[in-house]
């Protein structure tokens, strides 16, 4: 499917440019990933710094923070997800249009972080929604967020348009809506979405 790289370079030297629909399509998709304008805690301050002139997320086509989930392609979970907030985060994710991506930013968003043993903090947002890139750090530096974003771009670039591993919007059988957890009498119910998250095996 893909054109041989060397042949492509040779042809380029002759003034002939070869590409595929997939490459063109993914180039367009990865170059204008619009994040959702929403911050949860202190990581959001680093996220804001990343968009400002010094780090300038706009270089990667992701400067347009959208205030509505309907217009956003990417959700940056920037901060602590409390159990009170978790249903709203999942609901916002459900309201985003496909293709959509999630970056879990910081120790809290990926695992609960320093609040992991508390009663009111979710131990990682990946319990309820699929996360594409996890960034450790408390909070991660803007460079780390840029790195995560570049990683996401590479991931988008590598997605085939057909067959296994295609983006969810091209797969009619892919789940579109993720169940919103209920706020129960003692904890969120269920404690995790088993279709998204399974208990990782700990090798000892």
């Amino acid at each position, binding site marked *: 499917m893909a054109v041989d790289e060397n042949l492509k370079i040779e042809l380029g030297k002759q003034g002939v440019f070869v590409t595929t629909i997939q490459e063109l399509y993914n180039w367009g998709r990865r170059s204008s990933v619009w994040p959702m304008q929403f911050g949860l805690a202190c990581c959001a301050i680093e996220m804001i710094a990343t968009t400002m002139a010094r780090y300038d997320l706009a270089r990667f086509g992701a400067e347009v923070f959208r205030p509505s989930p309907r217009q956003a392609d990417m959700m940056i979970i920037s901060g602590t997800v409390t159990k*009170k907030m978790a249903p709203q985060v999942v609901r916002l994710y459900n309201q985003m249009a496909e293709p959509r991506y999630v970056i879990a930013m910081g120790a809290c968003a990926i695992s609960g972080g320093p609040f992991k043993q508390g009663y*009111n903090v979710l*131990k990682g947002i990946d319990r309820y929604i699929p996360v594409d890139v996890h960034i450790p750090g408390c909070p991660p530096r803007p460079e780390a967020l840029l790195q995560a974003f570049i990683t996401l771009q590479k991931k988008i670039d590598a997605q085939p348009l057909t067959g296994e591993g295609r983006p969810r919007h091209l797969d009619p059988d892919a789940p579109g809506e993720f169940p919103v957890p209920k*706020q*129960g*009498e*003692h*904890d969120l119910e269920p404690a995790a979405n088993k279709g998204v998250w399974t208990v*990782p095996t700990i090798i000892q």
Partner: protein
Amino acid sequence: MELKTVEEIKAAIEEAVPGASVKLMPNASPSGQHSLLLGPEHAVQVAEFLRDDEELALDFLSNVTGVDWLDKEIAEKVKVTRQVSKPVEGGEPGQVQIVEETVEETRKLMQPGYLEMVYHLFSMAKKHGPVVLRMRTENRTDKVELPSFTPVWRSAEFQEREVFDLFGVVFKGHPDLRRILMWDEFKDHPMRRDYVEPDDFEYEPTAHDEVLKRTQEHRSREQGTGTRN
């Protein structure tokens, strides 16, 4: 001007609000921040007096805290005199006499637990403080009502809601007593000492101590039932 001492404040309260129960709670630590334990019956009048009194003018309620005191077992040594029958020395076998004997006995008393509120008052006008007030509920289960200070100091509103949420103290006279941090459907009071945490210890990559125990319990339970909770 210097703030009155706690004893003077106590005397002033007792004079201004007849029948108010005020108890001095001494603090032995170097800070010497003694507090006043208020009876809930006249607490609102006492609070109004502290706010409106020209000399005290405690116009700012800075901090509202809850403390959970569990039921406590107190061992107490008591001398008991009782009558014991002893065989008479040098007497016939089987002959007994009654002797009084004093023994030390340890008695165990259950001191019922309660929820305690601690208030820190300051005066913006006079630039003095803090005056520390306390109030206690009757027990930890059903008699957990205390008067609200929100009508007296508006700054108590959110803090009392937080105490209601996390400790379960019910404030009578509060204009809007709802949970503030946890969701409305939540039933527990997380800051209570006997709170049982939700069991989500299935994945703990660096478990140790208490957490390690819980993870192991979680895992053994999963293996027992074959299901993952």
